[in-house]
């Protein structure tokens, strides 16, 4: 398979990364070593060769490596988000850059994913410290979460239309499944799902995964539709 037919990682291009002079070091051993020896500011930018080395650690097959790269990046973004870091994409790329830098410097890494996770934890700690500095003195009052936005009829129609288009675009069995799966609340919802799993002859967990994947497709479609009609 052609390497260039990969959905090659799309970069958020930044200025060359400046490594911090101080790093937390209580994370996994390999990962903390990766930044602890940086005694002064260095400028480093990834090259296609280091990207190639990184991808090769994910899979020997380049197409598969590209997919695994995307999955790993999504996991990193979610990790930072779920851990309360802002600028999650930036943190994910920073983590990957640091791992690539260490590989470029010839560091031997036995547990690659564990190493990436270790670096991510360090980046998270650094980010929390930066966020603490940025936090206003009086943060006792949290801003309201839900903006009481009145949706204009035209906007509501647009959303509804996108939903209808996207749900119609799903295969019939997927559409029926999602309509049935997400109906009702509380006990009734649980019973309905059990019954649905029984009818389909699959375990409840398999049904949850199936519904989740259909929902993901539907959400992506709606987002695209709304963006196109904005």
């Amino acid at each position: 398979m052609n390497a260039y037919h990969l959905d090659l990682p799309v970069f958020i291009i930044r200025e060359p990364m400046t490594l911090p002079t101080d790093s937390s070091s209580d994370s996994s051993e390999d990962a903390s070593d990766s930044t602890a020896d940086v005694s002064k500011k260095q400028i480093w930018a990834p090259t296609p060769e280091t990207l190639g080395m990184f991808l090769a650690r994910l899979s020997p097959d380049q197409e598969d490596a590209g997919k695994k790269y995307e999955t790993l990046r999504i996991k990193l973004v979610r990790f930072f988000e779920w851990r309360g870091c802002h600028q999650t994409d930036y943190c994910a790329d920073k983590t990957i850059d640091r791992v690539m830098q260490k590989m470029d410097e010839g560091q031997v890494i036995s547990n690659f994913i564990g190493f990436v996770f270790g670096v991510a934890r360090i980046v998270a700690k650094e980010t929390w410290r930066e966020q603490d500095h940025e936090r206003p003195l009086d943060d006792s009052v949290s801003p309201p979460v839900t903006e009481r936005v009145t949706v204009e009829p035209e906007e509501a129609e647009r959303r509804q239309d996108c939903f209808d288009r996207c749900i119609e675009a799903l295969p019939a069995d997927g559409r029926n499944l999602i309509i049935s799966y997400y109906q009702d609340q509380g006990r009734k919802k649980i019973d309905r799902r059990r019954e649905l799993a029984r009818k389909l002859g699959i375990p409840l967990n398999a049904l949850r995964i199936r519904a989740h994947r259909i929902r993901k497709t539907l959400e992506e479609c709606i987002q695209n539709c709304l963006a196109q009609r904005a």
Partner: protein
Amino acid sequence: MPEGIDKEEVSRQYLLRELSPEAALRLEEEYFANDEVFEQIEIAEDELIDEYVKGELPQQRHKLFEDLLRNSPRIAQRVELAKLLAQGISRRGSEQIAVSSTADRVVHITSWKDLFWPVSVSQQITFAAAVLLLVVTGTGLFVSRLRLREASRQLSESQAELERKQQALIAENNQHAREAKQLTESLRAQEAENARLQTELERTLKNESQLGSIMPILLSIAGSRAEGTNKVVKLPAEPRIFELRMTLEEQNYERYAVTVKTADERVISGPHELKANGKLLKLRLTSTRFRPDDYIVTVSGITPSGKAQQVEDYTFRLVRGK
């Protein structure tokens, strides 16, 4: 994930930051190493979002979820989508119920026949007269019906003939579709072969700097008078990395969604979520994803609530290089 504890509950506790640091760390190690565990957490996120939207979360968890929501534009956006999903599904569900209850009513109406059977003597006499009248009229009708049946048979034959012709047309159509599919497949195979050859060619290049070279493409806003025409770029013969550079008039958003499409709205790549560097957005894509054609790069700003608002369209044209 700890055994004996509901996995979904552990994932929920993780998302709401109710887990102990040690348990959270263990779960993180697990989901980095195992895609299935990661998917379970995503499912727990779906459920939390739905329960938040439907007001089903207990007060404490409602508050914790709002903390999460406050720091995550993505989750805020998913909450909006979940509202749309809940409304749409409830509407669709009601439509299904309406259809099934109409069917139920039809079934009931057929059982009303008992109501029409007369009970008193006078009613029975009237009913008998009516039956007699029906028999006489019926005989006349029967004769007409025989004639009609003959006409109907002839009609059925012509209809069957038409159906046969229609079937033949469908079969012919299917044959065309199969041929078209075969052609598409062979075209794809040809493209894959071309791509493979491109890679081989690229591998033979000894000059490594050329191998990793990046081709910057500075894009102008669609219809911009400064440029007059679309940016014209020669598609290189060997694979390269295109770096699309888009200058923003103002940097009003923290994040942007960028989609690359052909002029006929076929999405080539995206939407990609990017962060502007000053007033500059950059996106790298491989040249092999492109063919000679006109392209539109749509840039939308993402509001803190996750809504995409169109900012600019940028255009460029790729022509075959010599």
